[in-house]
């Protein structure tokens, strides 16, 4: 396939993905002219470029659709539930048409499915009732403007009140207002009736430029510059999505600094990013070697260069990592459709609520997240949420709620899917686990331990396999994918109230800031993001072999573990051992090491199959001296230590 065709296919699939979301939003607010326009434009673009790249059949098919939305646009029709349904079906059909590649020279023979859809659209268009011209009463597209305003010096004497203008501006949307005082003269030269101030405003608004200019109608003799930065990410309030938590102002302020107008973005193939990351990884390792040599050689000129290079590499690393960060919303967006289709199929009424979509995660994580999340959501709707009758009987709201939330916590991103369904049935899980040989019949297990069995291979609690979940992948596949990403899956459930599955994922896959320590002479790296502080191990604690190992750090008692004991290493006769205090889920835990070497930029290399199963390790890395160090998974270590302490206690 030639690159042009490939590029079309990529563009087309992006358009179709967007179309999916827009159609669903349109379903919720059928008279929203901005969305009607967006659908029309998407279809129009696809039609045009499809014809150019040899997708003639697609282009012809699209013509009918474009026509339907064109009529609605001009007020000759309205958006009906049928139209949305048909549009979604057609969207899926377009996806298939694109997947089969450009048409052969001789054209494509007509296919029944295309014809059937075209016929349906035709009939729908024929029966269209001229609606009232669509008004923008839905959610308008939010746009971001940067407004720089400096009233004329006389403005205030002449009766202009900048405060009123700014208030008026703020009424249009969310305004982030900065007052600039650098034109204010020294006090002895100050004429208080002359206006010296200027304002910089970042406004996120559904209003257009005209309305903003209207605000400054009487202030046109001052300096006024209004720059439009384009639409804000995802239009707000899709059906069931909550965007209250999206703080527009800080985002806007950031945008103003970076001024990322739409036209300045570049599309890059992801493997090039991966290559860049690989090269950078090598560079970081080489730089560590340089540092090492420089400290051995003790030459000030060399040290200067080494330091400079370290600074540059760090900057380069941060810049490269930030290129790879994408908002989780990219994944969340796909689920509105999934939830809609599934709830329809299963006869359940489900609302999807997404929060924290702006949380950014490494691109590779994003790419791998869709599948596990689809599975978790399917599971929640299929097994978790009760039938409408059951819900009514239990006095639960008719609409079930599935919440997808993302947030950053330290070096991790937490993504959770919460449903308000029946919760996991611990007894059913126990029975199933015993049947599957995952649990001995007489084995004691807490509910929590039982819940976690759903991630074991071959486990499935579905009483009847519906077409929805019975696809041969279980929650074990979810766990596998997440573990491959160096993440962890956790499940919590309360009978009758619902279930929450949480994915804990590392912020980035490639390079982290680490703290290099030594335990029994073996180097280890702790992610710096999970380290709070390092303190000396008091002499009277050194001899302690067992019992309650607690250390008072300021006013808090912090439990600690000896990593050498935990790792099965022999204790070194080290005098000044140190405790690295880490924090996991807000709980502090001390890890005793022999030596804290220092900070280390760590290029994470995955562990081989021989060592992947070892608890508490998340990867390996090469140090400046060429030796290998292992990267510790602090969350797992702390859990392991807590479990060990319980056993010991």
């Amino acid at each position, binding site marked *: 396939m030639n690159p042009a065709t490939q590029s079309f296919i990529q563009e087309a699939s992006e358009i179709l993905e967007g179309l999916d979301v827009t159609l669903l939003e349109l379903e919720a607010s059928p008279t929203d002219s901005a969305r009607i326009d967006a659908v029309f434009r998407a279809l129009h673009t696809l039609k045009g470029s499809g014809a150019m790249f040899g997708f003639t059949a697609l282009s012809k098919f699209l013509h009918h659709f474009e026509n339907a939305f064109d009529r609605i646009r001009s007020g000759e029709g309205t958006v009906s539930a049928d139209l949305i349904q048909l549009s979604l079906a057609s969207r899926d059909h377009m996806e298939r048409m694109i997947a089969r590649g450009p048409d052969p020279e001789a054209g494509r023979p007509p296919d029944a499915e295309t014809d059937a859809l075209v016929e349906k659209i035709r009939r729908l268009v024929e029966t269209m009732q001229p609606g009232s011209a669509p008004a923008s009463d839905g959610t308008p597209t939010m746009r971001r403007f940067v407004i720089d305003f400096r009233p004329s010096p*006389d403005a*205030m*004497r*002449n*009766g*202009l*009140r900048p*405060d*009123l203008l700014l*208030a*008026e501006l703020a009424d249009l949307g969310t305004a982030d207002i900065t007052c600039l005082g650098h034109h204010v003269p020294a006090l002895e030269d100050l004429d208080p*009736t002359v206006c010296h101030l200027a304002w910089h405003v970042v406004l996120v608004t559904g209003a257009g430029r005209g309305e903003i200019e209207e605000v400054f*109608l*009487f202030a046109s*003799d001052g300096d006024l510059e209004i720059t439009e930065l384009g639409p804000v990410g995802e239009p707000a309030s899709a059906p069931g999505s909550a965007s209250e938590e999206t703080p527009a102002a800080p985002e806007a302020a950031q945008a103003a600094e970076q001024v990322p107008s739409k036209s300045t973005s570049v599309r890059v193939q992801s493997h090039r990013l991966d290559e860049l990351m690989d090269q950078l990884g090598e560079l970081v390792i080489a730089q560590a070697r340089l540092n090492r040599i420089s400290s051995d050689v003790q030459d000030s000129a060399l040290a200067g260069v080494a330091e400079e290079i370290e600074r540059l590499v760090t900057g380069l690393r941060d810049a490269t990592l930030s290129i790879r960060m994408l908002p989780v919303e990219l994944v969340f967006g796909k689920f509105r459709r999934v939830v809609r289709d599934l709830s329809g199929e299963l006869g359940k009424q489900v609302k999807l609520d997404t929060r924290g979509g702006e949380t950014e995660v490494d691109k590779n994580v994003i790419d791998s997240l869709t599948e596990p999340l689809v599975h978790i959501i399917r599971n929640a709707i299929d097994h978790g949420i009760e039938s409408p009758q059951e819900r009514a009987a239990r006095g639960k709201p008719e609409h079930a709620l599935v919440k997808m939330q993302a947030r950053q916590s330290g070096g991790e991103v937490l993504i959770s899917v919460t449903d308000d369904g029946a919760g996991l049935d611990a007894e059913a899980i126990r029975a199933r686990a015993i049947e599957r040989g995952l649990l001995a019949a007489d084995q004691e297990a807490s509910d929590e331990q039982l819940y976690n069995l759903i991630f074991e291979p071959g486990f499935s609690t579905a009483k009847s396999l519906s077409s929805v979940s019975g696809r041969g992948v279980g929650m074990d596949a979810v766990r596998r994918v997440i573990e491959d990403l160096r993440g962890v899956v956790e499940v919590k459930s309360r009978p009758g109230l619902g279930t929450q599955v949480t994915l804990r994922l590392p912020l980035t896959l490639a390079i982290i800031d680490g703290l290099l320590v030594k335990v029994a002479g073996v180097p280890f790296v702790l992610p710096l993001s999970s380290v709070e502080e390092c303190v000396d191990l008091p002499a009277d604690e050194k001899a302690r072999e067992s019992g309650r190992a607690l250390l008072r750090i300021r006013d808090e008692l912090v439990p600690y573990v000896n990593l050498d004991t935990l790792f099965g290493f022999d204790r070194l006769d080290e005098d000044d051992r140190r405790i690295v205090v880490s924090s996991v889920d807000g709980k502090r835990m001390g890890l005793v090491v022999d030596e804290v070497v220092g900070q280390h930029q760590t290029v994470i290399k995955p562990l081989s199959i021989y060592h992947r199963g070892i608890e508490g390790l998340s990867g390996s890395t090469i140090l400046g001296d060429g030796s290998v160090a292992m990267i510790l998974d602090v969350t797992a270590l702390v859990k392991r230590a807590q479990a060990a302490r319980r056993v010991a206690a």
Partner: protein
Amino acid sequence: MTKTILSVDDSKSIRDMIGFTLEPRGFTVIGAADGVEGLAKLGSQPVNLVVCDLNMPNMNGIEMVRKMRADRRFDGIPIVMLTTEAQKEKMMEAKQAGATGWLVKPFDEAKLVAVVNKLLG
């Protein structure tokens, strides 16, 4: 405290219209038939906003604005000029002279209220 609006216009019907529109909304409206009378009223009582016609006998609107802005006592009092579509250039002159905003005739109640609110908050 109620805000006082001075309507300077040679047409009684305009002054009345401004009074009928703004008084029910809690403003005090006083009137003047030309610039001379307008300046006199300004000097005798506190005024929060002036609505001023462009063409008037004795002292026209622009001249009145100039005089007003030359007198520091009246700093910060907004002046709305009444103008017609055809008087765009005059309007810019008034603006340079120190007018704050304008209102294009013919105007309805809503527009008047909007402009007053815009300037007085």
